[in-house]
């Protein structure tokens, strides 16, 4: 008898290909997982989403706040400032071009200081703190009803080092996943989890090793939507691996000073080299180049 509410918003990223992949953007009331090798842009994605959730509704965004839980220590405020500035410029550009009064008014509240003040940042050091934090998050969200995004970067890190009892780990992770989905559902927020990759030796004849998302098979069931980020021929790609409403697809994206953006086509050498230069300038990036760059 209950009809599903289809007016749920999505958090749009500034990369239209990614939005297309996810069916409008990162959806609310669901857990989205981004997995990838080091340096592919998972933390960048998390930071970009923390800014994108704050886009005023006049521009089609959600106008909400974000909770960022950092377990690795890879969060850099300077980088966030750069992204926020770029987002603000982009929106101001739209507002002046369309000369929409509502949008111009909304810009007053969308400055870099406001953006940074609406991100609630937590630094946790081990799994006990993480589990405790997720347990008290519902109360926090009740006091801050405008929060629409919770980013945990990364969920794999505290559980991968020095964890002797694997069954305890599985149980904790399952409990964490249930808490997250309950949180997402009751507060109409999106939960974004960042996961690492691990190597698995293939059983299927060839015995080749390939990369799979970390934390095991059982963790695969925890997230509603899973996006794999990977490198190929010098370009970053995102592949939708698991989703209840979208087909599997792969799209390219790039990380620039402004954050996550589309890859501009035509894909000639010029664009790639400028992208390379801008990435080199950006601070706080995992700047270890794992693959040789075509330039």
């Amino acid at each position, binding site marked *: 008898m209950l009809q599903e509410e289809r007016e749920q918003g999505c958090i749009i990223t500034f990369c239209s290909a990614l939005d297309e992949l996810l069916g409008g953007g990162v959806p609310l009331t669901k857990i989205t997982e981004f997995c990838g090798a080091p340096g592919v842009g998972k933390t960048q994605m998390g930071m970009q989403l923390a800014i994108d959730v704050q886009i005023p509704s006049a521009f089609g965004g959600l106008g909400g706040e974000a909770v960022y839980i950092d377990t690795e220590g890879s969060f850099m405020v300077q980088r966030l400032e750069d992204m926020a500035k770029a987002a603000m410029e982009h929106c101001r550009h739209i507002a002046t071009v369309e000369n929409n009064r509502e949008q111009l008014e909304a810009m007053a509240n969308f400055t870099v200081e406001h953006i940074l003040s609406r991100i609630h940042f937590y630094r946790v050091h081990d799994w006990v703190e993480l589990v405790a934090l997720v347990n008290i998050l519902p109360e926090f969200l009740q006091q801050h009803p405008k929060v629409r995004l919770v980013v945990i970067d990364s969920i794999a890190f505290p559980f991968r080092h020095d964890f002797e009892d694997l*069954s305890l780990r599985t149980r904790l992770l399952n409990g964490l996943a*249930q808490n997250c989905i309950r949180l997402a559902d009751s507060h109409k927020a999106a939960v974004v989890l960042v996961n690492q990759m691990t190597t698995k030796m293939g059983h299927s004849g060839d015995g080749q090793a390939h990369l799979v998302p970390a934390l095991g*098979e059982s963790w695969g*069931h925890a997230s509603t939507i899973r996006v794999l980020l990977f490198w190929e021929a010098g370009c970053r790609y995102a592949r939708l691996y698991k989703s209840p409403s979208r087909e599997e697809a792969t799209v390219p994206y790039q990380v620039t000073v402004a954050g996550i953006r589309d890859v501009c086509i035509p894909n000639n050498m010029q664009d790639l080299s400028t992208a390379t230069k801008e990435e080199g300038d950006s601070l706080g990036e995992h700047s270890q180049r794992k693959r040789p760059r075509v330039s």
Partner: protein
Amino acid sequence: MAPLKVGLCPALTAEVLNSLQHAGVRTVTEFVCMDLELMMTRCCVSYKDLVAIRKVLLVQFSAFPVGGSSWYEEILSTTAILSTGNSRLDDMLDGGIYTGALTELMGAPGSGKTQICMSVAIHVASRLEQNVLYVDTTGACSGRRLQEMLQNSAGDKESAALSRIGFRRIFDPWQLLDLLQKTKAAISKQSELFYSKLKLMIVDSVAAVISPTLGGLQTEGHAVMLNVSRQLKVLSSEHAIAVLMTNNVVQGELSEPWPGLGRSWQHIPNTRLLVQVTGTQDRQMLLLKTPRLPRYLSATLKLSAAGILDLHTHTGQEAQRQLEV
């Protein structure tokens, strides 16, 4: 081990219940085993009332032997076979999903269990016009996808079909138990129209809600799991409802897929299907546990915009049915 409650029978009022509880009689079993004269002196309840209550409790809670032919007649009249919408899957299940039985789908993440559940729900609601209770424990059910499936399959009678599906979002096992109790009560009361035509209950997924409580030194999770299984069985057999559940997959001894939730859970479903990924949209279903057909029957499915429903374009493809016994 059912507790005594007000309203189980007309003579069981609140004061009678209070005096019984003071005397230490809390469950039906304790009441029925106690000596009535002794209870009468201890609780100051009249002998007539106690006899009446005892009679009603015995009728409600004991199992009566039935003759084989009358049982057969009963099964014939009450069991229904719900088609899943896909003829190959129906063939593998000997007609479809049976009411009075628990059917389990297991598979790796991303293998399509939720898609199959949604597709079956849509088919039962729109074509077979029966009510469906969809219990979602992972947040994976997407209304947009349901609408897409509906549009691609039936086209018409859209809103009527969706109103026949009841959604519940459950995130812990006690809520699930509560829901099962309430559903049982609502069906026996026959008060709401939705429950009287309820024929299918989908729980997606059972593993997600129960596995956080299992393992370690606590045994409560195990008890909760078996309690859930018992409620599901009672619901399915007493009220002629088909139950479709989804489960995880873990690595077995020889690295083959093994159903999650442990050994105790393996005995619970009557039919078990494994969903495996063979291509971007292709899936292979393997029959692992069945009361009627030989094991290891397999069929291939294609996940399309309409779910797993047969479309005219798909019936043209070759049906690979291999009997590997």
